[in-house]
């Protein structure tokens, strides 16, 4: 079988067994402890499966960031290496796990790691260091009252003494370990204790004790996971039987041990069994002894364990020498020396290799650092991009808020516009209502004046004196001219101002019709388009009423060519000039207007004053009444003169 095929076979086997095992344990892998149990199960039975699960367990622990679990698995991996004879790599793993446990201050773990390191030291013959480690572990176990730890430490100390052939000391510690063992459930330590008892008692020739321990151990280790120990004990019991002279019994046990170790593929145990067999055969059957020893040598050679091979070659050459087969003895010696040379050479190369490995390690560490750096950089970039993304999001959010605010503002503006519109509308409505109200008021005023006029008209029917009739008629006419003004106001678009032209035309027409005069009077009108407010229109209307009435009644003696000219002209600015001019008799010379008590004159004077105007009465072709005033009633016109009237007798 080529190595590749073998490797494939192993891998297939591992996967297969892993599968088979996984079918009933998969669901149990919820913690590192579950893995640990499986690894322990396979450690002797199937080291490859154990390695496989240890790898899985390590991955699992790493993912869970379980440092404690990682350290525990490292211990297990170390033990697997240990069983395979890779003491260097196992020691490294133990040391790492020790560091981890120390950083976690995990007492049990520290003690366990110390024990394992001690075992490596022990295997390398560094007994002082080994015992030192075991004692440290013992101290820790004692501090935490860990019985298992104390048992383990004591057993290992015992082992260290045993390896140095200090049986007394070994027995002393082993008894202490056994004391704790009796208080604890069965473990591989228990079996080791029984095994060592067997060895020590065998050495002390206390065969009975030795056999009882070994038999007990064998009984308890008839389990797949304790196969290694079982084989150890088989060989040790065989050694006991050999010492007792029961060689046949010993050989059968040793053959069993050989088969078992071949079955589990544990070459260390196979070597041990082969060596034990050759030792048993050595005295009585050297050829068979050589047969087994040769197998051991080739196995050691195959497994590349030169130290063992050298030892076996040494023994082999001695056996050949005893047989007188010097040629083979020499060949064995030759190979032994060659191995010794190459072994030391290999050691050196190994050192170089390890240096190289360390260099590679440091290089890969540097690589890791670099990767970490890149990773950090990526993380930083990631952070930056996250920041950028966050900023973008924040920006978007801000934009949304701003848009929202704009929208809101727009809504508010629309709303306020709407409110403004509504207010304008209501104002408009109010204005219309005001207009309507004003019209209504003017209407009422006019109606009331109409009632007054009707009353006066009725009164007229009941008086008989001419004076009374005249007085009442004149009063009616005055009321009428005011009433016409109010009518204008409620009929026109504006309730504030009176359009003077149409008013005066109407007034003249009314006076003309109601005078009852039979004279033919032509009224000539020249009225500018002027609007007065009521405060000005009333006095102007009354002045016109008085002047025209007077003209109609008194100006004309004849019945033809009678003419009255009325003009209201706008001069520059606000200056207004009112003319009433007839071509009648004029004022008789004896009449003094200044002292005239005529009601008409009085009214004209007074109303002109009210207008802040200037009155001029002249005889000019007839009578000319001229009033100058300003459109603004508050302004006096003319301001310089306090003359309200004057009479000039023209021509």
């Amino acid at each position: 079988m080529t190595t590749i095929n073998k490797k494939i076979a192993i891998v297939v086997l591992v996967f297969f067994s892993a599968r088979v095992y996984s079918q009933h344990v998969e669901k149990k892998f919820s913690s590192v402890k579950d893995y640990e149990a499986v690894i322990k199960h396979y450690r002797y039975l199937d080291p490859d499966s154990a390695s496989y699960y240890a790898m899985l367990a390590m991955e699992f622990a790493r993912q869970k960031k379980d440092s404690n679990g990682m350290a525990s698995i490292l211990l297990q991996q170390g033990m697997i290496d240990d069983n395979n004879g890779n003491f260097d790599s196992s020691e490294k793993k133990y040391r790492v796990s020790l560091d981890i446990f120390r950083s976690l201050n995990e007492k049990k773990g520290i003690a366990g790691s110390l024990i394992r390191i001690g075992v490596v030291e022990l295997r390398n013959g560094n007994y002082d260091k080994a015992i030192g480690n075991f004692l440290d572990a013992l101290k820790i176990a004692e501090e935490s009252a860990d019985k298992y730890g104390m048992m383990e430490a004591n057993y290992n100390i015992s082992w260290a003494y045993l390896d140095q052939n200090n049986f007394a000391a070994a027995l002393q510690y082993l008894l202490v370990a056994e004391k704790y063992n009796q208080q604890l459930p069965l473990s591989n330590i228990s079996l080791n204790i029984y095994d060592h008892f067997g060895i020590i008692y065998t050495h002390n020739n206390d065969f009975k004790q030795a056999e009882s321990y070994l038999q007990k151990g064998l009984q308890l280790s008839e389990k797949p996971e304790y196969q290694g120990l079982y084989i150890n004990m088989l060989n040790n019991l065989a050694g006991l039987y050999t010492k007792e002279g029961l060689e046949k019994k010993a050989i059968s046990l040793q053959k069993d041990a050989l088969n078992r170790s071949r079955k589990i593929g544990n070459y260390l145990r196979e070597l041990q069994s082969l060596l034990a067999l050759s030792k048993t055969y050595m005295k009585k059957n050297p050829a068979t002894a050589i047969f087994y020893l040769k197998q051991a040598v080739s196995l050691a050679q195959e497994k590349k364990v030169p130290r063992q091979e050298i030892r076996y070659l040494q023994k082999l050459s001695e056996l050949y020498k005893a047989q007188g087969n010097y040629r083979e003895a020499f060949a064995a010696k030759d190979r032994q020396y060659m191995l010794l040379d190459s072994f030391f050479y290999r050691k050196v190369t190994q050192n170089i290799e390890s240096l190289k490995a360390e260099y590679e390690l440091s290089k890969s560490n540097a690589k890791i650092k670099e990767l970490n750096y890149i990773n950090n950089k990526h993380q930083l970039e990631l952070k930056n991009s996250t920041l950028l993304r966050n900023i973008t999001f924040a920006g978007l959010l801000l934009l949304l808020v701003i848009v929202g605010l704009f929208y809101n503002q727009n809504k508010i503006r629309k709303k306020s516009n709407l409110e403004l519109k509504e207010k304008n509308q209501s104002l408009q409505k109010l204005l219309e209502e005001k207009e309507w109200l004003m019209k209504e008021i003017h209407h009422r005023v006019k109606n009331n004046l109409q009632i007054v006029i009707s009353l006066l008209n009725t009164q007229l029917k009941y008086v008989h004196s001419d004076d009374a009739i005249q007085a009442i008629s004149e009063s009616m006419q005055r009321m009428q001219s005011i009433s016409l003004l109010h009518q204008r106001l409620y009929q026109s678009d504006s309730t504030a101002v009176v359009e003077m032209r149409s008013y005066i035309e109407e007034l003249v027409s009314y006076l003309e019709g109601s005078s009852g005069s039979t004279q033919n009077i032509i009224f000539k009108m020249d009225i500018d388009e002027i609007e007065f407010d009521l405060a000005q229109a009333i006095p102007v209307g009354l002045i016109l009423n008085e002047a025209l009435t007077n003209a109609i009644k008194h100006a004309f003696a004849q019945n033809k060519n009678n003419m009255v000219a009325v003009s209201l002209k706008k001069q520059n600015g606000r200056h207004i000039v009112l003319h009433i001019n007839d071509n009648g008799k004029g004022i008789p010379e004896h009449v003094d207007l200044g002292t005239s008590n005529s009601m008409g004159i009085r009214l004209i004077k007074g109303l002109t004053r009210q207008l802040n105007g200037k009155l001029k009465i002249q005889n000019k072709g007839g009578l000319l009444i001229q009033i100058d005033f300003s459109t603004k009633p508050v302004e006096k016109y003319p301001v310089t003169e306090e003359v309200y009237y004057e009479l000039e007798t023209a021509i």
Partner: protein
Amino acid sequence: MNRKILIVEDEFIVADDLQLTLIHAGYDVLDIATSVKEAMIMIAEEAPGLVLLDIQLKGAQNGISLAKTLREKGIPFIYLSANSNNKIIEAVNETKPNGFLVKPFREKDLFNAVDKVFQLKPEQ
């Protein structure tokens, strides 16, 4: 020919003045009604030859609604109104009145309008 004039005017002073004026001028005034309802009763009792009808009247009905009845009964009528805005004139025209006098009117205008209905020549 029936020349009795019914005055429909809710303002007594105005109506009374109108009545006196007409009587003084030699016209025959039947009565004064102050509302459409009263006018209807009076018309039912004795039909006038002419109704002088104020448009603005107290009560639910105004002069225009009475005018429709008058038109149906063939009684002539002349409106007397203080108002002369377009809306009213439109409504008034629809009732085809025999005359329309805007207050304040001159006695001369009143007599002319009445004489026109009675097909009398003006005295002058």
